């Protein structure tokens, strides 16, 4: 990507992100009390992450089988409240193992 276009994108994304964080901190001193707005803001992080994960995760490893295995490993570990790093590493290792097996099979056939 050329740098001019890149910096325009950066200006927009960083600018919007900063304004969202800065304006309330500098201007607003009253607390938000409306429970519907509070609830909406409570759900947003989780629904956003979910939407970004599914279905993109299934094409994240170059191969559906390894992605499914990695995803299942991540889900199981997350259900047991394992930390971010543990879940991410184990899920990557599981995907790597399946990718390795697939590559070996492809070489031998």
């Amino acid at each position, binding site marked *: 990507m050329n740098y001019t276009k890149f910096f325009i*994108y950066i200006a927009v994304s960083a600018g*919007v992100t900063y304004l969202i964080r800065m304006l309330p901190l500098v201007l607003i001193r009253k607390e938000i009390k409306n429970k519907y707005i509070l609830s909406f803001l409570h759900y947003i992080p989780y*629904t956003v992450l*979910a939407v970004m994960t599914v279905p993109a995760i299934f094409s*994240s490893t170059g191969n559906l089988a390894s992605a499914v295995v990695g995803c299942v490993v991540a889900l199981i570990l997350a259900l047991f409240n394992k930390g971010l790093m*543990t879940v*991410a590493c184990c899920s990557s290792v599981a995907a790597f193992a399946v990718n390795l097996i697939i590559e070996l099979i492809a070489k031998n056939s």
Partner: protein
Amino acid sequence: MPPKELTSFKQGIKDGLPICVGYFSVAFAFGIFSVGHGLDVVQTLVISLTNVTSAGQLAAVPIMAAGGTLVEMAATQFIINLRYALMSVSLSQKLGKSVRFVDRFIIAFVNTDEVFAVASSKKETVGRRYMFGLILTPYVGWAAGTLLGACAGNMLPEIIISSLGIAIYGMFIAIVVPETKKSKATLFAVALAIVLSCIFNFVPVLSKIPSGFTVIICAGLASLIFAFLCPIDTKKEAEQ
């Protein structure tokens, strides 16, 4: 008795260290993700230095790679990062007397979920020197992780890179799943968001909608519906 104020820069650095370690790994995964989408190492680092938001950056990269419109970029960042507005409102009540007007402009730049969480968890109000310490370590971790991840993404063999592609999604799963165990309403909101996301990705006409808008529509709709169906008890939430 007036509330005490945390004023130690060192204490801030110390409280920021666990966040720094966590950010390093997320940023590492982001670095790999970004160069995987065709951005170079410098561009990837600049994104992290200027945005400082994991979900926002992860949404921004595909928009850049696909040559999306600036409206799409602005709208996506707005909805994904809207929660920071709430955190900033809340944090503004927590800042101590030593925080000057200009300091607020700097603190806002690195008011991430985790920095906010640590600052809010303090009994005392937080002073300027404490806050500068608290945002410095995570910011350094975020930048260093991004740089190393982007370099690794250019050097490691293809099979390892593609396997590491799942890492950042693994982290997202580790954030979302424990929360859905705590709250049925969050579980259903997440489930609805996923169903909508699949519809928008696989139904022919809808799949033409740019990725940024898909995130806004699916996450926004699911959150809106559940905000009205199951509004959270804010008093109960505050006690936790």
